[in-house]
């Protein structure tokens, strides 16, 4: 009958300096959460009234009308985000479809093919691209890219027009979600590249060597070892890029033609996204319309949150099988 003693309570009393440092570090760590929480609370507070009035129609209806009489009294107002929501999803999807493969190829090039000098040069260049002002991407997209992209859009329409989303109701190809998506693609390449490259560079050397020792070519080694290992990173980079593309304002505002009509036809010059709508309206809006824009911001906020949550789940699930 030996008696089992109760576990002792272990107390470590940290020094004062450590306690102070702990407070500082904790404050730093929590600050982003607090700021994000405050923004969310602010958007919800201002936007709640509008969402309550509009109900589900706020995301299914695509009119954005404020009708005033001569003395600037509001006669009627109607807010719906459907067109902008579709435009957001469409242009961001184009961006991911075009941008992510380019990013993955450039990450593979940098990690496995590039010589040391060109590698460090290109990495610096891509980092620079990430910090490049988005209005310049927008201007370049509008002035330089659009004329060529219009030709590609026409080609796509000519040969793939039988697929509904490549069809157009009228031959009007400029300022379309497709072209906005191309500009966004260029903007998400840096982040998608650097995340994929980061993950590829962590591929265990012994696995790479095992593949080479079995007579693998560089290509077959990448397919059998690097891509399975880096899958999670590719998806994570794509999702971060998607989040960035959905939230992008200025570049889209410059390129896209904002039309309050749901348009699923990616090549047709009509659309807009939520962020560019806010930018367009916020200066001349009265208080009620600003509230509606806040509600739109809330929708965008939640959409990005959901995308990031999905990204996390995918990264965790895919990450396991390849490692």
């Amino acid at each position, binding site marked *: 009958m030996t008696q089992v003693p109760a576990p002792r309570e272990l107390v470590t009393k940290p020094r004062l300096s450590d306690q102070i440092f702990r407070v500082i570090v904790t404050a730093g760590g929590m600050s982003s959460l607090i700021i994000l929480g405050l923004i969310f609370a602010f958007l919800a507070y201002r936007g709640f009234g509008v969402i309550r009035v509009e109900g589900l129609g706020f995301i299914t209806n695509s009119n954005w009308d404020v009708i005033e009489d001569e003395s600037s009294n509001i006669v009627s107002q109607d807010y719906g985000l459907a067109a902008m929501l579709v435009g957001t999803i469409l242009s961001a999807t184009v961006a991911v479809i075009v941008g992510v493969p380019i990013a993955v190829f450039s990450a593979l090039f940098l990690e496995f093919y590039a010589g040391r000098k060109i590698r460090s040069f290109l990495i610096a260049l891509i980092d620079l691209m990430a910090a490049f002002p988005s209005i310049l991407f927008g201007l370049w997209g509008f002035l330089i890219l659009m004329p060529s992209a219009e030709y590609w859009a026409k080609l796509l329409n000519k040969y793939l027009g039988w697929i509904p989303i490549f069809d157009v109701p009228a031959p009007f190809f400029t300022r379309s979600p497709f072209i906005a998506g191309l500009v966004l693609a260029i903007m998400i390449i840096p982040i998608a590249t650097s995340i994929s490259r980061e993950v590829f560079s962590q591929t265990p050397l012994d696995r790479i060597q095992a*593949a080479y020792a*079995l007579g*693998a070519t560089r290509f077959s080694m990448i397919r059998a070892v690097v891509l399975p290992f880096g899958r999670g990173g590719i998806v994570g980079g794509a999702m971060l890029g998607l989040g960035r593309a959905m939230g992008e304002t200025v570049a889209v505002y410059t390129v896209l033609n904002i039309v309050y009509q749901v348009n699923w036809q990616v090549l047709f010059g009509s659309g807009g996204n939520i962020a560019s709508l806010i930018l367009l309206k916020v200066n001349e809006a009265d208080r009620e319309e600003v509230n509606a824009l806040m509600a739109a911001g809330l929708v965008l906020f939640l959409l990005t949150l959901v995308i990031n949550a999905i990204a996390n789940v995918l990264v965790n699930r895919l990450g396991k099988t390849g490692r």
Partner: protein
Amino acid sequence: MTDINNSGRDESVQTPGESKEMKTSTTPHSLADVASARVAKAPGSTTLGSGLEARGVHAWFGSKHVLKDVTLDFASGTVTALIGPSGCGKSTFLRTLNRMHEFIPTAALAGEVLLGGKDIYASGTDVTKIRLRIGMVFQKPNPFPSMTIGQNVLSGLKLAQLKVSNTDDLLEECLVRAGLWTEVKDRLGEHASALSGGQQQRLCIARSLAVRPEVLLMDEPCSALDPGSTFRIEQTISELSQTMTIVIVTHNMQQAARVSDYSAFMLSDGGPGELIEVAPTNELFSRPRDKRTEDYVTGRFG
């Protein structure tokens, strides 16, 4: 054993069963006893497998000279152990034999390595074909974790884009030769990470056998394994040596004595590693010609 017709050397031929029995019944008193229990196979005593010859091999990492003028023959169908203290260049030397050395940035090399009489470093040589003929097993088991056990064994075919008509037979044959078949035959669809370390290492051996190499290089294949798994892999080596040329780097001199026909002792005196002595294993352990070899094999240093 039909490939051996030299009756004077019949005692050197061990069937897998006999070799196992002998190992378990022998209590080794000294390395020389263990080594002399095996009689070295004569060069060319088997017809399968190609011989490998290193001719004046030097190796550098950047400006550091790590391997100096190693000339060593690996006759076909023999097992050669490379022994020596850490840092003597034996792993580097092994990696020059199938051109894995050049993966390390700044690595450089001089000399020739001849496979079947042809220099594997000659310009115009397809390095992937060389590595198909000279397989390698690494220190740490490194199966591909994204693949199943079966896919791992056959992965070399996919990696080198080889076509094989009956992969089921090949799969079974490789796993049998690596001594893993009975343990995994009912779980070929499981992921390789479900296996123990020793099983993973035998899986890696099976994987390198699937592309039918003529030479197998093993870089301390048992150093991460427990004695039971080590024993199984040594058995596998004996069985494989019937049909191929094997070069094994080992820190374990008992192991060198147990599995090899020839042993090569390498040493670095602070400078580049050099080949000190090569001899049939029983001779190297019982009558080393060089004082430094004797000091090492008797455990006086290293």
